[in-house]
């Protein structure tokens, strides 16, 4: 059975399903829903024939007062796991339950005679001992390579010293001796796993704690020479680079999100980076056989990059009134690293309308924009008309001034009594006045025409074409190493303790 589990290509997935089902039954059991819990465990066994399901179902039946079902489950348990380390205890428990059933049947018969017709009697509930009402857990032990001899010792004396290989170790009892992979149904308690010397590999060992109603999965990589923990890093930015114990990032990344692999137990400093995101740093502490997932939520940096080019041969680009530079066709777009947010952009080119607009720089992303500059509407006619208008208005002004001067002179002469009507200044002033009026009138018409032609602009305004936002360019090594073989300096890993986020 254990080999079938280890050989399955999706063993981890199956083990996860088993674990979920085991924990579901455990949750129902804890809340007193024994029948539903028994049903879950029975179903779990039908789908995944591990004896732990049967034992736990038996406990539930017993707690529920269904002793015959409990007996049945325990008998099947013994049938399934003929090498169960608790075989004797289970057999004794079956016998005790049978005796209880017999007593129960006799009591019912007596009750039927004395209390006819008393109706159907409710089943008796013989509460099991406290130690017998504890769930057992499924413990899976795998080695790499497989077929390594595995010994599991249980701490039976809480006062016993720590297990030391090669010594008598009083207080520790050998409960199983198998060849990996191993799947065991173990009672709650502290155990010590020993992988004996196998082929060219040295012995490895580790303490484990079995909690009720769980699935414990232990892995030992014999080549590492030590038990390993398992670290998985997930996050909101797939492909983000994960560095472990490499603050200066001198080595290739440990992996890319999401990534998990065995890792030596102890404190580890995790650094997660992705282009356009702030660096994430956290220190985690793992025990041997821990499986920890660190979910990283990377936050984008406060700045972005804008790349600007244009549809003209040359364009002068200014952002926030500071010149960015002269862009020329054929050259890469001008780049500017700017604080995220709205910025002013001015793009100008000879013979084209200036572009004055705003754009929003995304956080931690590249925004390509292209200035679509529209040619300026030709103003030749307007300038010509303006020149004619200026000349006419200037002439009009000159003639007007001359006319006024002549009028003033004539007025003075008249006031002095000298003016005679044949004075040529009268006709001259009159013609100057008419000329001034003509200059003003015609010049005014030309000025209006010129103004209209200066204002007139049938062409649309220059526009800014915003491209699709892109992530920052990833300048790291193109390929991240695979999970296997990344950490060559450790030997064994296993142990499951969902102290952080379980996955």
């Amino acid at each position, binding site marked *: 059975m254990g080999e079938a589990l280890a050989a399955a290509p999706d063993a981890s997935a199956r083990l996860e399903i088993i674990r979920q089902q085991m924990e579901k039954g455990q949750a129902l059991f804890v809340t007193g829903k024994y029948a539903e819990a028994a049903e879950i465990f029975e179903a779990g066994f039908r789908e995944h024939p591990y004896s732990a399901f049967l034992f736990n179902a038996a406990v539930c039946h017993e707690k529920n007062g269904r002793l015959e079902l409990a007996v049945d489950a325990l008998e099947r348990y013994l049938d399934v796991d003929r090498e169960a380390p608790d075989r004797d205890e289970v057999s004794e428990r079956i016998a005790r339950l049978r005796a209880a059933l017999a007593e129960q049947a006799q009591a019912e018969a007596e009750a039927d005679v004395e209390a006819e017709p008393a109706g159907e009697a409710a089943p008796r509930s013989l509460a099991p001992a406290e130690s017998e009402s504890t769930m057992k857990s499924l413990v899976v032990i795998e080695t790499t390579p497989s077929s390594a001899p595995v010994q599991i010792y249980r701490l039976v004396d809480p006062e016993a010293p720590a297990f030391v290989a090669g010594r008598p170790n009083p207080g520790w009892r050998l409960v199983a001796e198998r060849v990996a992979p191993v799947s065991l149904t173990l009672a709650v308690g502290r155990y010590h796993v020993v992988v004996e010397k196998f082929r060219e590999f040295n012995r490895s060992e580790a303490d484990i704690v079995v909690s009720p109603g769980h699935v414990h999965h232990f892995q030992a990589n014999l080549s590492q020479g030590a038990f390993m923990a398992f670290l998985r890093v997930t996050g909101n930015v797939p492909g983000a680079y994960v560095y472990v114990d490499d603050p200066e990032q001198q080595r290739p990344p440990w992996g890319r999100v999401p990534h998990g692999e065995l890792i030596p137990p102890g404190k580890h400093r995790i650094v997660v980076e992705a282009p356009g995101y702030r660096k994430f740093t956290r220190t985690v502490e793992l025990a041997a056989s821990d499986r920890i997932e660190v979910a990283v939520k990377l936050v984008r940096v406060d700045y972005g990059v804008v790349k600007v080019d244009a549809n003209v041969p040359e364009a002068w680009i200014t952002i926030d009134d500071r010149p960015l530079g002269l862009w020329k066709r054929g050259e890469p777009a001008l780049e500017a690293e700017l604080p995220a947010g709205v910025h002013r952009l001015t793009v100008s080119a000879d013979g084209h309308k200036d572009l004055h607009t705003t754009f929003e720089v995304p956080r931690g992303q590249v925004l390509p924009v292209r200035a679509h500059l529209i040619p300026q509407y030709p103003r030749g006619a307007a300038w010509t008309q303006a020149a004619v208008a200026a000349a006419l208005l200037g002439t*009009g*002004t000159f*003639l*007007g*001034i001359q*006319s*006024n001067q*002549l*009028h003033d002179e*004539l*007025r003075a*002469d*008249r006031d*002095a*009594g*000298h*003016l*005679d*009507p*044949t*004075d*040529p*200044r*009268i*006709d001259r*002033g*009159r*013609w*100057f*006045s*008419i000329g*001034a*009026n003509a200059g*003003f009138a015609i010049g005014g018409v030309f000025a209006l025409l010129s103004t209209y032609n200066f204002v007139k602009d049938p062409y649309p305004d220059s526009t800014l074409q915003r491209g699709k936002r892109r992530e920052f360019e990833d300048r790291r090594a193109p390929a991240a190493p695979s999970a296997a073989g990344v950490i060559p300096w450790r030997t064994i890993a296993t142990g499951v303790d969902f102290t952080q986020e379980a996955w």
Partner: protein
Amino acid sequence: MPRRAGSVALALLVGACSWSRFDEVSEPAPVEVLERPSALKAGFGNVVAVAAQGERVRALVGGVPLASPAAHFELGFDERPGIQAVSAVVCESRGPRACFLATQPAGLRKFLLRGEEQERCFAVGLGRDDSTLGLQVRCDAVSVTQPVPEVVEAALTEVFEGAAEPPELFAASDREEEPTLLAATPRAKSAWFYPPLESVPQELVPPRAPGEQYGRAVAVVGISGGRIFAVGDPGKSEVWLYRWLGEEPEVLGCLGGAAGLGRSLAAGRIDEDDEEELVVADNGDVWILRGAALAAASPAPDEPCGVDWLPEGAELDRLTCDDVDGSHVCEGSEFGAALIVADLDGDGSGEIIVGAPGMSAAGKRRTGAVLVYDWSQEGGAAFADLRLLSSSTEGSRFGAALAVAPQRGRDVILAGAPGANKAALIYCSDLYTGESARCR
């Protein structure tokens, strides 16, 4: 500053838009120009004279004396049009009725022509009427040759015989209802006069031989009961005075003085008595002699020419160009080239009008000017006004000839500007304070 510039621009625009303002400023003008007839060529304005009767005023304006004809102008009274009509050209020097235009013609309120009284006549020059040689007087369209002294007739004969150039004529009259005509011609060294409404000349012969320029200026001074005739002889700086009280004229005396004395003469009532004063110009100054003193003076024909023989107080005042205010140039101004006495302000006393055709004024050389002097008992003679012709150019010689044109209780000045071929009526003066659209 922008506000001021805006105001200037607005004023410029609004002002320049109106060309009719030039009509408004020039009509009616304070100076009215007599348009030169096309028949008169150069020198128009050299000769001016006025003959008035009531409100009818006629002006004679001629060109170059002896050579050019003259023209009649009917003048209006202050309102437009200033000049109502122009008559035919008179005193043409060619043809059988040749007339040599006088250098100084005389206007006559009345004159007896062919036994009939005619009004508003002019002694226009010496000439020939059929077979008669003499002084030509023209009244309207009628022109009659008056007899002249024999010596003058002889001179004319030489002219028509081609033996001599035409003689100049200088004539003057008074403003009496029946005026006396005084005439002189230096060529013949002869001066003569025609008593009122008479056509027989009486020659005025000085007791001593006259100079070559005897008669270059003449004036008739009205005095009670008669006239005093003044005949200038500027070549000798003398002025001969003759008193005529209706009988034979008598030599009153000879005035002498500075060089050129007698180059211009005029008469008119200046002071407060009833006698007219005599105004005499020499080459530099203008002298005013009291008419009453002249009338009362004892004849002194044998006295040397001077003023010693005059009674005390005969010299009323002296006018000089230096009295003129302003920046006008007196040097070479020909101050006193022409003289008249006219009552410009209508107060009954005449002002002395002095022509200075060589005066440089208003920044123009020899543009000419007419200077007005007022005289009062308290202050004597004082410069009052300077009149210019605004259209004058350099060399216009405005003020070369002067005449008085009466205008409903006051006089206006008719002045020639031969350099500009113009003659103009000067309606306004600083002294005039009456209501007139021309002098607003």
